[in-house]
């Protein structure tokens, strides 16, 4: 029954998406200020569709929770002996389930938009919902026609095959849902941008409607990428935190576009400039989300993540991708000329700095995009290549370095026009910090160029992030401004972590006999013992390493080499010692013929700052949303009070004078 309810809910939701699309399109035919009688169904359709899609997802969750082995998806991805948490997270640890999550979040965000957004003109709202319905319809079709999650087996399986052990981790509970919510949140930004473009409503009040969606999606993407990076770092056992893996790039590209969009939307809301640019970024950001989905889900990539390999599905998503992106850019090309020019600004102004950084972000996006797609392109000509850090790091840095410099100065500039002379002190300070830090670090040794630049920029950015608060009364600074300060400071913190990891990491790889001692950096580690251990669905050998710094009190680390039995697979469980100034990362390998064990230990100074920085950036985004909501609520309350008072006065004036007692 569960599967049938879920499937029926999905089909109904798809039908409602058609209704939403058609009804929304009718809103476009209404004259200004009027309501088309057929346009009133779009909002309820979106809300009910959200309920149905979420219901379908809950049904699948339920099927995984009780391990209903008559459902093909459960049988091939779950196991009755698995811990409950991983049974549940296994729901979206596979192709069909994750696409259902995608669609569920898409419908949910459409429903929220339809249910709560009352500020937009009816025509714009109708067009927005029509576009949202059109996008949703494509993905319903994809789900129902080529990857039905509720497919039954003719004969129920006796036992499930289990879940890829790499995915049996708390990381899976957090990382994909947040990333997907972020990806899909950008679909609302896309629909709103198309709606505004179609009805020619690209103005500050539209930007204020768009902003919370962009901010929300961006916060979720930031958080998802941060969580994913840490997960890959400790789970894969390779000691790296970013591999320029195509799937990682697939999440980075929408983030870059969303970052640019978020800043450009702020300019549109505050200054009524960058109108067409904002629309274009809105289209670009969601295009990158869909491209990401295509790359991950089509199986065109060699990647740890891309475990769904099915060319037919790939062709389906590619078709959707071409339809939506092609359609959106066609409409953009046809309509962009009709959007009138926004307000002007000088080169040295806050808008100028934001535009510069928008362009830099887009350039980095182009670098990442080309690097990710290049192997696919060459493969068409039978040349197999892979593209890695030697390409991405320097090519990205060429645009990232000027971006960070302008980012330090930008928030200090005034809107519209400013004189660089006014900021002489701040400019000198930033330059002195960059040069001073690089000189100081170079004094202590030879380090690679990029980490060195990163350290200098991180120092300057950390200080510059707080400069906008200079000379202001801290208690009166708006919450949204604190958000910006925090997010920019987070970038500095993260950059510092990356640079330290790049410049000062130390590594020791050795074959150690039990009782033997080795040295890495200031730490010495002794292999105390190697013992077999077992978990609920794996067996492992566990090495016990006694780690001490400068001969101090030893701490025990226990890295494992695990063997899962369903499905059979070996993984390496790293062990981490986290200190305030860095992490010690230990992995155990094979046993050499002479009985010694391979042990690999890294000392990574300040590596944790990478993820602390990511969290700070996300927190900054949350503060920005909170600040905007607070201002909005205040405004609504004030206008409601004003209306009440006017009504009172009118009532008093109209009423017959009450005789005094």
């Amino acid at each position, binding site marked *: 029954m569960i599967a049938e309810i879920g499937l029926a809910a999905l089909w109904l939701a798809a039908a409602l998406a058609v209704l939403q699309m058609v009804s929304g399109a009718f809103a476009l035919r209404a004259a200004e200020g009027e309501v088309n009688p057929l346009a009133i169904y779009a909002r309820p359709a979106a809300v009910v569709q959200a309920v149905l899609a979420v219901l379908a997802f809950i049904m699948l969750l339920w099927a995984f929770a009780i391990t209903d082995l008559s459902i093909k998806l459960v049988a091939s991805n779950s196991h009755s002996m698995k811990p409950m948490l991983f049974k549940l997270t296994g729901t979206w640890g596979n192709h069909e389930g994750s696409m259902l999550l995608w669609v569920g979040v898409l419908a949910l965000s459409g429903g929220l938009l339809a249910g709560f957004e009352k500020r937009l003109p009816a025509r714009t709202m109708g067009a927005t919902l029509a576009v949202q319905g059109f996008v949703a319809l494509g993905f319903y079709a994809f789900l129902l026609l080529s990857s039905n999650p509720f497919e039954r087996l003719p004969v129920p399986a006796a036992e499930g095959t289990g879940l*890829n052990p790499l995915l049996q981790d708390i990381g899976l509970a957090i990382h994909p849902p947040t990333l997907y919510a972020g990806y899909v949140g950008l679909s609302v930004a896309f629909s709103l941008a198309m709606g505004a473009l179609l009805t020619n409503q690209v103005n500050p009040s539209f930007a204020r409607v768009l902003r919370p969606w962009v901010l929300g999606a961006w916060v979720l993407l930031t958080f998802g990428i941060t969580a994913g990076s840490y997960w890959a770092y400790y789970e894969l056992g390779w000691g790296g935190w970013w591999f320029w893996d195509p799937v990682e790039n697939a999440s980075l590209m929408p983030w870059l576009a969303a970052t640019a969009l978020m800043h450009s939307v702020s300019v549109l809301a505050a200054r009524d400039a960058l109108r*067409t*640019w904002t629309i274009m970024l809105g289209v670009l950001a969601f295009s990158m989300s869909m491209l990401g989905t295509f790359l991950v889900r089509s199986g065109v990539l*060699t990647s*740890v993540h891309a*475990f769904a390999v099915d060319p037919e599905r790939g062709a389906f998503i590619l078709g959707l991708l071409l339809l939506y992106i092609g359609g959106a850019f066609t409409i953009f090309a046809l309509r962009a000329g009709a959007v009138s*020019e926004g307000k*002007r600004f000088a080169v040295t102004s806050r808008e100028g700095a934001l*535009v510069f950084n928008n*362009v*830099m972000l*887009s*350039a*980095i996006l*182009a*670098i990442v995009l*080309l*690097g990710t797609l*290049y*192997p696919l392109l*060459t493969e068409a*000509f*039978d*040349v*197999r*290549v*892979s*593209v*890695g850090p*030697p*390409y991405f790091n*320097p*090519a990205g840095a*060429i*645009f990232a370095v000027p971006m960070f410099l302008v980012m330090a100065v930008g928030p200090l500039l005034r809107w519209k026009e400013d004189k660089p002379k006014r900021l002489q002190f701040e400019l000198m300070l930033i330059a002195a910090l960059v040069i001073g830090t690089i000189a100081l670090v170079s004094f202590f040794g030879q380090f690679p160029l990029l980490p060195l630049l990163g350290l200098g920029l991180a120092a300057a950015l950390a200080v510059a992030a707080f400069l906008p608060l200079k000379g202001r009364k801290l208690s009166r600074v708006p919450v949204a401004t604190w958000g910006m300060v925090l997010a920019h400071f987070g970038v500095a913190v993260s950059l510092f972590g990356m640079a330290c990891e790049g410049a000062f990491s130390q590594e020791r*790889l*050795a*074959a150690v006999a039990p009782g033997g001692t080795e040295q890495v950096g200031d730490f010495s580690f002794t292999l105390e013992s190697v013992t077999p251990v077992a978990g609920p669905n794996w067996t492992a050998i566990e090495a016990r390493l006694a780690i001490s710094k400068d001969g101090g009190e030893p701490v025990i680390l226990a890295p494992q080499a695990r063997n899962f039995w369903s*499905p*059979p*697979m*070996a993984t*390496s469980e790293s062990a981490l010692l986290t200190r305030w100034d860095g992490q010690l990362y230990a*992995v155990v*390998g*094979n046993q*050499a*013929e*002479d009985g*010694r064990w*391979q042990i*690999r230990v890294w000392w990574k100074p300040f590596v944790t700052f990478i993820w602390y920085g990511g969290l700070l950036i996300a927190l900054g985004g949350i503060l920005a949303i909170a600040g905007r909501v607070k201002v909005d609520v205040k405004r609504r309350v004030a206008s409601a009070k004003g209306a009440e008072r006017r009504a009172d006065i009118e009532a008093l004036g109209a009423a017959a004078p009450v005789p005094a007692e």
Partner: protein
Amino acid sequence: MKAKHQRLVLVIIALLAIVGAGLLAAWSLRNQANYFYLPEQMASDPPEIGQAVRLGGMVQAGSIKTMPDGVTVNFMVTGNTADAIPVRYSGILPDLFVENSGVVAEGSLGPDGVFIATNLLAKHDENYVPKELEGMGTDQAAKMAAETTVGLK
């Protein structure tokens, strides 16, 4: 500056930056992309010393030798011909790295003709296979790779 002009200037600057990024990407991709070599290709037309490439083939039977330090292994990778390329790797070996099995080594050719691998990709499990060896048994891997890598420069 007129309003229309400012938009035009902005568009031109943005286009220049993006095209610049594209050209830069194209140029550095030509230099930095990691080409895939079979043992016979590496023997007949070796890549430049120190250039990052990938070498894919089969681990020759009886060729895996662990050095006295316990973490460095030397082995030979063979393809469809008699050519065999010596490979040296320091690190923790993938679990399914065994003789007569497919492997892709990332690294570069050293001046002594030994391929210094920085990373080894072996068949990990049925879910994660190096793309070049996807769906292959042991012997097929090299053959398949040969068919799909014509036109290597």
